[in-house]
């Protein structure tokens, strides 16, 4: 279980995350929803070790992650699909997948197969430079690349950002599929509707604080959520 307790993070001169606590159960899909600037990305980046928290603790199966470097965190099975996909544009699709498995020393063939089965489009384009892919394909590649590290927890930062609705549908299907195959998912989204439909449990983040939490379906029915995030 990934457990965040009393986490505060300063970022860009402001306290972007203020004393938040939440949990991600093994095997669940958990989402943090909230408006732009609510501190969602900062939270994920701190868990990944890219930012240092001001205070608080992040534990995974009881082990403290605060103070560990990103590569140590990745090697413990926690990976982040960054916002804006950030595939390596000059590398081929296959190279992007291989670099996702950078810390592994075992044979990659089975996992490349697994990713190609999840995303047949990537197999068709395996020799193409990643920069030439469409936005949706790049998102698939970013997810596939993260899966190559054989994560136990995959964190996704706005996977639907800038994608056409039909593609967004597909991405969320894949998120569920990955989860069914045993990977815990921590998802942050501005697309609250999709996120709440997908997630087992959700937290609402507003200006650095968690203001609500509950099962995704419950929050979908909540009047305040409807008003603030679902536009109803």
């Amino acid at each position, binding site marked *: 279980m990934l457990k965040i307790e009393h986490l505060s993070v300063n970022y860009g001169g402001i306290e972007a995350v203020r004393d938040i606590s939440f949990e991600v159960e093994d095997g669940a899909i958990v989402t943090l929803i909230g408006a732009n600037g609510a501190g969602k990305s900062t939270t994920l980046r701190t868990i990944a070790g890219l930012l240092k928290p001001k205070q608080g603790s992040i534990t995974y199966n009881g082990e403290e992650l605060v103070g560990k470097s990103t*590569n140590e965190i990745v090697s413990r099975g926690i990976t982040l699909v960054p916002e804006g996909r950030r595939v390596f544009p000059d590398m081929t699709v296959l190279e992007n997948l291989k670099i996702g498995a950078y810390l592994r020393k075992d044979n990659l063939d089975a996992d490349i197969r697994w990713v190609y089965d999840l995303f047949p489009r990537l197999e068709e384009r395996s020799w193409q430079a990643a920069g030439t892919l469409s936005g949706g394909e790049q998102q698939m590649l970013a997810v596939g690349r993260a899966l190559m590290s054989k994560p136990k927890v995959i964190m996704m930062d706005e996977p639907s950002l800038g994608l056409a609705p039909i593609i967004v549908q597909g991405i969320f299907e894949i998120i569920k599929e990955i989860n069914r195959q045993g990977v815990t998912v921590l998802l942050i989204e501005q697309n609250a509707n999709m996120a709440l439909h997908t997630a087992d449990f959700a937290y609402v983040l507003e200006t650095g604080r968690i203001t609500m939490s509950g099962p995704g379906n419950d929050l979908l029915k909540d009047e305040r959520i409807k008003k603030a995030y679902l536009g109803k």
Partner: protein
Amino acid sequence: MDNLTYYIQQLLTGLTVGGQYALIAIGYTMVYGILRLINFAHGDIFMAAGFFMVYMSATMPLYVSLPLTLLLTVILGVAVERIAYKPLRQAPRMSIMISAIGVSYLLQNFATYYTGGLPRPYPKIPLIGDVIVIGNVTTSWITILTPILTLALVIGLVMLIKYTKVGMAMRAVSRDFETAQLMGIKINNVISMTFVIGSFLAAVASVLFFSKYPTVTPTIGAMPGLKAFVAAVFGGIGSVPGAVVGAFVIGICENIIKAMGYTTFSDAFTFVLLILVLIFKPTGLFGEKSTEKV
């Protein structure tokens, strides 16, 4: 006929000089590719390699002093990065650039202090300085050896970058620090690796260079360093093949200009070239198109 021989000789010299510039230029271009830093101290690393060889070979046989020189140069290059650049990783780019200029002066002044400022004769390396005659062309082994060795090292390096895991990590880091970290890549190790390669090649260049211009002075690194920098910019800074092509072009052009009797202008040519490149094609021959990091 004599004229032709003369030009062939000049061309060979040009290739040699170009090879030396190329080996130095790779250090500039790789460090720039990864850190977006122009490592002003790189020419002085080249100078330091010259002095290492002078002092090592005074007491040790060549087969010890030569590898030791390469090793010490690599250690110096990595130490410079760890001490002067690494603490500034999060600082604005200008700070780290100023730090590089500081290191450059530090190395030059330390060398002046230690050597008393006197030019030191470089040890004779047997065989490679010997003269050979091919047809009408009289030349030395070093002239033949330099371009071949340069090309072999460059091909090796390009293969390393393209096909190995560490090369893949280098390409990733040069593109995107943060995402590279998310892949589990240890950024600092990759950066150190770049300085290892750059300093090693600068040390090789210094052995080749000083076998022909056999005195070492504390400021000797400045000119070859600058020329190599121009070569890197001309080829498109950040690109290894670009730096090599640029270096050979500059080496050959300089010597052709000298051959035509305008020796005074050969340095000027290089810097006019720099100005023209910066005006008309700032990304150089093979430079990456400036993509904004988002």
